[in-house]
C-alpha cells in the first residue's frame, strides 16, 4: 500500500518563513548600519524607519509557516 500524499499547503512558496525572515534580517542589518555609520547623514535620517520596518517584518514573518 502506498503512503498517502502529504497535504499541500496553500501558503505561497515565496512567502514561507525562511526566505521572508532572511529579507527581514537584511533590512534590520541595513538599518543598523545606517544608524551607526559615519559617512552620510541622510542614511542616518532614514535608519530608524528601515530598522522599524525590518523589525516589524521579522515579528510578523516569524509566524509564517515553514
Amino acid at each position, binding site marked *: 500500500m502506498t503512503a498517502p500524499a502529504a497535504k499541500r499547503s496553500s501558503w505561497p512558496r515565496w512567502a514561507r518563513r525562511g526566505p521572508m525572515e532572511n529579507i527581514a*534580517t537584511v533590512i534590520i542589518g541595513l538599518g543598523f548600519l545606517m*544608524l551607526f555609520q559615519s559617512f552620510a*547623514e541622510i542614511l*542616518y*535620517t532614514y535608519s530608524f524607519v528601515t*530598522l522599524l520596518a525590518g523589525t516589524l517584518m521579522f515579528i510578523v514573518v516569524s509566524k509564517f509557516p515553514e
Partner: protein
Amino acid sequence: MTETNASLLDRAAQAAARSTPEPVARRVRGLSDKGVAWLFIAPTIVLLLAINIFPLIWAIRLSFTNYRANRPNAEVVNVGLDNYRRILTDSDIWFAMQTTAHFVFWTIVLQTLIGFTLAWLIDRKFRGHAFWTTIILVPMMLSPAVVGNFWRFLYEPQIGLFAYVVSFFSGIPPTDIQMLSSVRLAPWAIVIVDTWMWTPYVMLICLAGLRSIPDYIYEAAEVDRASNWRQFWSITLPMALPFIMLAVLFRGIENFKMFDMVNLLTGGGPGSTTEVASITLKREAFEKWRTGFSSAFAIILFVAVFGLANIYVKALNRVKSR
C-alpha cells in the same frame, strides 16, 4: 496475562484511584487546576507588566508629546513624529551614535578575543587553574562605581600606576599620558576599563562552551592524526561558537546601554568625545528635562537593540542546528 493477574492489577488501580486526593483546586473555592496555576503565576505577571511593559508603553506614548518631567502641570501637547524627526536630523546625536558604535565594536572585539583565549588556556587544566579562574573573575564581581573610581586613580597622570607603567615601557613622561583628558586617548581609556571588567564574563561563557565538548571527539581526531591547529579549527571553534555568539549578544546589548562607567570616568568629555548615546539620553532627560524628546530617543535605541537581538538569535539558532 492470566485472569488472576488482570484482576489483581484492576484492584490495584482502583485502590490507587481511591487513595488519590481530590484535586486541590476543586476544594479551593471551586477553582480548576488551571485556575490555581494562574493564581500562582499572576503576581509575577503583574510585576512584569508593571516593571517592563507599562514603562515601555508609557515611553512610546510620551515620545509623541512635548512632556517635561520638571513641569508636571504644564499642558502636554501632541507633537506627532516631531521628536523622532529632530533626533534623526541632529548631527550631535548622530555623532553620539558613532561614538557608541566605536565603543561597542572595540569592546566586543577585545573581550571576545581575550576572553576566548583565557578560556582556552584555563581549559588546559594546569596546576592551580581553579585559583587563577577565581582571580580572573574578580573584576566582574566589582561594582561599576568602584571600578570607575578605581580606574580614575589609576589613570591619574601624576600619581596613577597606569601612566607609570606605560611610561616605563614607552619612555613617554607620565605627565604626558592624559588618558581621561586627551581627545585621542579618552575613548580608549573607557574601552580598556570595560574590557578589563567584562572579559572574565566572556571567558566564563566560553569556558562553559569548551567544557561541553566531549573528549571522545578529540580522541577520534588524535586517531586520525589531526594536528592541534586542525583540531582547534575543526572541533574547538565550531563547537564553542554558539557560546561565543551568546557572549557577544549579551555584551553587545549591555554595551549599547553603557552609562555608569562612561559617566564616572569622563562624563562624556573631553568635549563630547566620549558622549555615548546613553549619556546624551541622560542629558536630554535629566539636565534639559526634555522627557518627550528623550523618550523618542530611548525608543530608537530600543528598536535598534531589539532588531539586532532578533538577527542574533536567528544566527544562533542556525549555528546550533548545524
